[in-house]
C-alpha cells in the first residue's frame, strides 16, 4: 500500500542529496551580527528603564539586568549545546501521520482556496468588530478588552500586513524556486528561513510560557506568589531573545543533513504546532481570567499569547500549503506512477458521482 508519505521527497533519492543544507558561515555570521545589533538597539532604546540607559551612560547591574543576562546566556548555551550534541541533525519520522499528510498534499489546491477564505473571513471580521489593529482580532473575539481603534493605526495595519507577507516570502525563499531543472537555493536564503522560523517559534514558546504563568497566577508581582513577569520590561525582551536564540540553534539542527524541502517542512510543522498549542493553552486561560484584567490586558500572559497565536497560525498556514504543494510536485517528478494513481483515484470518484 502506498499511502504513507515519506519524510519529504528526499527519501526516494538519498544518494543524490540534492539541495542539502550546508552552513554558509559568512552569511550566518553577518546575520547573527545584524540580529545582535537589533537587540542592542532595543536595549539602548530601553533607556527609559531604570536598569539600562546606555545613552545616558548608565548601566547599573541591577537584579533585572542580571536576570536578563542569565536568560540570554541560558538560551544561547542551550542552542549551542544542541548544535554540538546533534552534529548530523535529527531524525524525524512522519510515518504515523503519513496518510494524513498524503491526503493534504493531494488536496493542496483545496487547502489554498480554504486559506484564501480564512483570510477573507479574517478581514471581514476585522471590519465588523473594528479591533485597533488586524492582528488583534482574537482580542476582539475572545478577550473583549474594549481597546478602541484609532485613525492613526491605518499605516500600522498596512505595515503589519506587509511584514506578514514579506516574512512568508522570506521563509519560503529558503526552499528555492519552482523550475523543471532547479538549482538549489543559495545558502544564505535558508539562513533567513531559519531566522524567521526562530522568531515565529520563539514567539509561540514565549507566549505559551506566559500563558502558563498567568494560569498559575505567577506573572503579576501583586499576586504575592513568586513568579516571572515576562510580559513587560527588560525581562520580557530577555526571555523572548533567549527563546529566539534557542530556536535559532534548533532551526540549524533541523536543517542539518536534509534537503531544503524537508528542513522547511520540519520548521513550518513546528511553527504551526507551536502556535496551535499556544492558542489551545491561552484561550481557556484568557476566558477565565479576562474579567480580572479587563481594564488593561497589557500585563496578562494569556492575553499576549492569544493575540500572538492568531497571526502566527494564519502566517504558518501559507508556507505550509506551499510546502505541501512542493512535496506533491516533487513526488510527481520522481515517481511517474504517482501521477497515474492520482488520476485513477479522481476518475473513479467522478465515476461514482455519475
Amino acid at each position: 500500500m502506498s499511502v504513507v508519505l515519506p519524510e519529504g521527497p528526499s527519501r526516494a533519492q538519498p544518494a543524490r542529496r540534492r539541495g542539502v543544507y550546508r552552513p554558509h558561515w559568512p552569511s550566518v555570521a553577518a546575520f547573527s551580527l545584524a540580529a545582535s545589533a537589533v537587540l542592542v538597539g532595543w536595549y539602548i532604546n530601553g533607556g527609559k528603564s531604570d536598569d539600562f540607559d546606555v545613552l545616558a551612560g548608565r548601566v547599573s547591574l541591577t537584579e533585572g539586568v542580571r536576570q536578563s543576562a542569565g536568560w540570554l546566556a541560558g538560551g544561547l548555551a542551550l542552542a549551542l549545546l544542541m548544535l554540538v550534541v546533534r552534529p548530523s541533525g535529527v531524525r524525524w519520522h512522519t510515518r504515523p501521520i503519513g496518510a494524513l499528510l498524503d491526503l493534504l498534499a493531494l488536496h493542496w489546491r483545496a487547502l489554498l482556496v480554504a486559506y484564501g477564505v480564512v483570510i477573507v473571513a479574517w478581514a471581514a471580521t476585522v471590519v465588523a468588530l473594528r479591533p485597533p489593529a488586524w492582528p488583534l482580532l482574537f482580542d476582539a473575539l475572545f478577550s473583549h478588552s474594549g481597546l478602541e481603534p484609532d485613525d492613526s493605526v491605518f499605516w500600522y495595519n498596512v505595515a503589519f500586513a506587509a511584514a506578514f507577507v514579506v516574512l512568508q516570502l522570506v521563509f519560503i525563499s529558503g526552499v528555492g524556486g519552482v523550475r523543471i531543472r532547479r538549482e538549489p537555493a543559495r545558502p544564505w536564503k535558508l539562513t533567513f528561513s531559519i531566522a524567521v522560523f526562530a522568531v515565529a517559534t520563539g514567539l509561540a514558546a514565549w507566549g505559551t510560557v506566559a500563558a502558563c504563568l498567568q494560569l498559575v497566577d505567577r506573572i503579576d508581582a501583586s499576586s504575592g506568589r513568586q513568579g516571572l513577569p515576562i510580559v513587560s520590561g527588560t525581562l520580557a525582551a530577555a526571555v523572548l531573545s533567549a527563546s529566539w536564540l534557542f530556536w535559532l540553534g534548533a532551526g540549524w539542527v533541523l536543517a542539518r543533513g536534509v534537503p531544503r524541502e524537508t528542513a522547511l517542512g520540519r520548521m513550518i510543522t513546528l511553527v504551526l504546532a507551536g502556535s496551535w498549542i499556544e492558542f489551545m493553552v491561552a484561550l481557556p486561560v484568557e476566558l477565565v481570567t479576562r474579567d480580572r484584567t479587563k481594564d488593561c490586558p497589557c500585563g496578562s500572559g494569556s492575553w499576549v499569547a492569544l493575540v500572538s497565536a492568531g497571526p502566527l497560525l494564519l502566517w504558518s498556514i501559507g508556507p505550509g500549503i506551499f510546502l505541501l504543494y512542493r512535496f506533491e510536485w516533487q513526488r510527481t517528478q520522481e515517481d511517474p506512477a504517482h501521477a497515474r494513481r492520482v488520476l485513477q483515484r479522481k476518475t473513479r470518484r467522478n465515476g461514482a458521482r455519475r
Partner: protein
Amino acid sequence: MKTGSYLSSARTTSLLVLLLAYVSVDQVTSFLNSAGALQQAREALARAFALQQVSATQVPGVMAMRPVQTRHSCGFFDKVDATQLTVIRTDNRKWRADAFWCDAQERQPPEPRTALVRIARELYLPVADAADPGELFAAIEHHLTDERVEIAPLGFAMRADLTPWVIGPVVVGLLALMRNCTRSVLAGDDHAIEEPWLLVDEGVGAERAVAGLWMTAIALAPWVSGSTIFAAFAWRVYADGSMTTALTDVTLVAVAATVLLSGGWLGMTVASDLIALRAARRQRHDAEARRVEAIEAN
C-alpha cells in the same frame, strides 16, 4: 484474521470520545459563565471594604482581610490609585481583588451593595432587604465556587471544575484504544471489508462531507478536552487562590500539558490511520472489481 469487531469497536469508541469532549466543554462553559460574576462580586466586596462598609468579621467564612495600597491599570497608559484586598478564608484558601474607580464620580457609598444585589438577582439567589454586603457576597461566592454537578451515568456528584481532569485522560485512553483497533484492522488481511463505517467507506456528496466532519471532530476532540483542563485549572486558581507551591504548580501544568499533547498526537494519528484504512479498503474493492471483470470476460 477477521477484524470486523475491531472496526465496530473503533466506531463505538469514536462516538464516546465525541460525547465526552462535549460533556467537558459543557462543564467548562458553566463555570466560565460564572467567572465574570465572581470577579465582579469580589471587586464589589473590595470596594465595600475600601469604603469601610464591611470587615472580616462580617463576611461568613472569612478569617482575615489585608489591604495594600497599589495602582490599577485603567488602560494601556492610565493608572489609578487602588486598594488591593487579600482575603483569607477559614479553610486557608485566599483570593485578592482590587478596589478602584476608573471614573472617580462612580465612588458612591451605596454602589458596592447595589452591585452585589444585582449579581445575586442575576443568579436567582434570595436577597433579604436587610442583607449587608458581606452576607450577599458570601451567598454569591458559595453559589459560584462550591457547586457540584451530578454525573448521572456514574451515579455520583463531583465539583464542576474537576470534571475535565477526569474526562481528559479518559479521552486519551479511548483514543489509544481506538488507534489500536484501527491498526489491527489495517494490519489484517481483509481490512474488515464486510463491516461498514462511513468514515472508511468510499462515499460521495453528503456522505463524504459527514465523513470529513466526523474525522475532523475525532482529531480535534482531544485538543478540546485537553484545553478544558487548562480552563478548569485557571478557574480553580482564581476562584480559590489556590495555596500551592511552585512544585505543585509545575506538576499540574506538566500533567495538563501531557494530556493535551498526547491527546492531540493520538487524535492526529487516529485520523491518519483511518485515512490509510480507507485507502486500503478502496484498493481491496478495486482488486475485487477487477477480479470479477476478469472472470466475466473469460
